[in-house]
């Protein structure tokens, strides 16, 4: 069990968080979420004392690891850490990466270390890749090797710092499956991530950091579906929304389409939705914002993504136009045919300062 009591940390006199209290039971998978600069990684790094807090206690299995005289190397041996960028030794093979610490630190024989490393590689689905060079592996494979390397020291606790952030969306699943299997073996996992889809699926408990402390904690269902605090609601809403101001003069459709695509890729999506993005640019945004006689003054584009399904919504508020953007003189049959084909449905409505177009993707 890990018990964090009244923990405070500041950098240059500015508090990161104050009086944090958190208890983590053996075998739990606790995911820490929160905005950038909210101190998620700092909190994680305090747990293995890579960062020293200003005050408070961290008690692990009855021992305050912040107390003077603590054998921090012994504490760290029971704790693994997995990083965003894998941190594999690039000059060593996959196998050598895994057996290094058991031989050097735990004093294991090479033969035993190799036997165990092979079992660990099988466990993370990397059998047969013992001799591979880390640079020849995909991101997902590197991360699985990094997890196997951590497991070689038989940790009770593993700290994960953004383990999926450097991975393509397609590789998140394989790493997620491995992390899930650790919890089933009773290893305590503490994960910092900004990937809320991953957080929702992997967590047994979610901790939301905001306003210099733990703002709210609960099961994924409580936090993601029924957040009690306004700050949590606001954070979840913002992290699901891509928002851009567009003006006719500074319209870069290629950049916009690629940003929208990158945002969509953080969520579940269908091929047709990806195809809609350039169509949106060519068949709606350009004709309205670049109309030769009555262009919109500006537009606010919002892409709202769902955490739980692939039903996402686009909302485009066009300012300074008098007539419906989904009709002449802005759009003709051809524009509408293409738009309607790639969207689930499209409608427009009048607003105080112009017109809004809503597109269900």
């Amino acid at each position: 069990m890990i018990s964090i009591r009244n923990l405070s940390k500041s950098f240059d006199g500015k508090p990161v968080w104050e009086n944090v209290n958190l208890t983590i039971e053996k075998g739990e998978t606790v995911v820490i979420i929160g905005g950038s600069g909210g101190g998620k990684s700092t909190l994680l790094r305090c747990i293995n004392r890579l960062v020293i807090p200003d005050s408070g206690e961290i008690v692990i299995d009855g021992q305050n690891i912040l107390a003077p005289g603590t054998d921090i190397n012994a504490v760290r041996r029971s704790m693994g850490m997995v990083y965003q960028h894998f941190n594999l030794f690039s000059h060593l093979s996959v196998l050598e990466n895994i057996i290094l610490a058991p031989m050097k630190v735990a004093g294991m024989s090479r033969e035993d270390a190799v036997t165990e490393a092979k079992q660990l590689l099988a466990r993370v689905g990397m059998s047969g890749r013992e001799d591979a060079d880390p640079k020849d592996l995909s991101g997902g494979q590197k991360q699985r090797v990094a997890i196997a390397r951590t497991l070689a020291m038989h940790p009770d606790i593993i700290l994960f710092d953004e383990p999926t952030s450097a991975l393509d969306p397609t590789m998140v699943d394989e790493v997620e499956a491995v992390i899930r299997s650790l919890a089933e073996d009773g290893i305590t996992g503490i994960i910092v991530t900004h990937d809320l889809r991953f957080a929702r699926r992997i967590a047994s408990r979610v901790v939301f950091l905001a306003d210099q402390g733990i703002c709210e904690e609960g099961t994924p269902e409580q936090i993601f579906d029924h957040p009690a605090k306004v700050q949590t609601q606001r954070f979840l809403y913002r992290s699901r929304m891509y928002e851009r101001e567009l003006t006719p003069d500074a319209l870069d459709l290629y950049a916009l389409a690629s940003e929208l695509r990158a945002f969509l890729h953080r969520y579940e999506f269908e091929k047709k939705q990806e195809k809609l993005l350039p169509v949106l640019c060519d068949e709606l945004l350009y004709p309205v914002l670049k109309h030769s006689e009555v262009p919109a003054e500006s537009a606010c584009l919002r892409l709202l993504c769902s955490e739980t399904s692939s039903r996402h919504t686009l909302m485009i508020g066009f300012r300074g136009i008098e007539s419906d953007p989904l009709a002449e003189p802005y759009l003709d049959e051809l524009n509408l045919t293409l738009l309607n084909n790639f969207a689930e449905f499209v409608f427009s409505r009048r607003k105080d300062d112009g017109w809004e177009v809503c597109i269900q993707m």
Partner: protein
Amino acid sequence: MTIQKTIQNQTLTVMPEGRLDTITAPQLESELRSSLGGITELIFDLDKLVYISSAGLRVLLSAQKTMNKQGSMVLLNVRPEIMEILEITGFADILTIR
């Protein structure tokens, strides 16, 4: 987008590469305007075209209208993603695709 053109006798082959969209369609339009004189067969080789918007379709339609008066026009090597657009918009019925 890059556009390759080859003229053999009165046959012009145009090979646009990349995306034929709002931004790039005017480029193709001006290329065609300056090269269709005296051409009786216009071939669009679309092997390297990956996306087409309404603006691109309009250029093809305008070229078809010109060629109706002076010869014929055909689209070759149409990729599935472009074919999808041609079918949705009914252009597959108007244009000759081989």
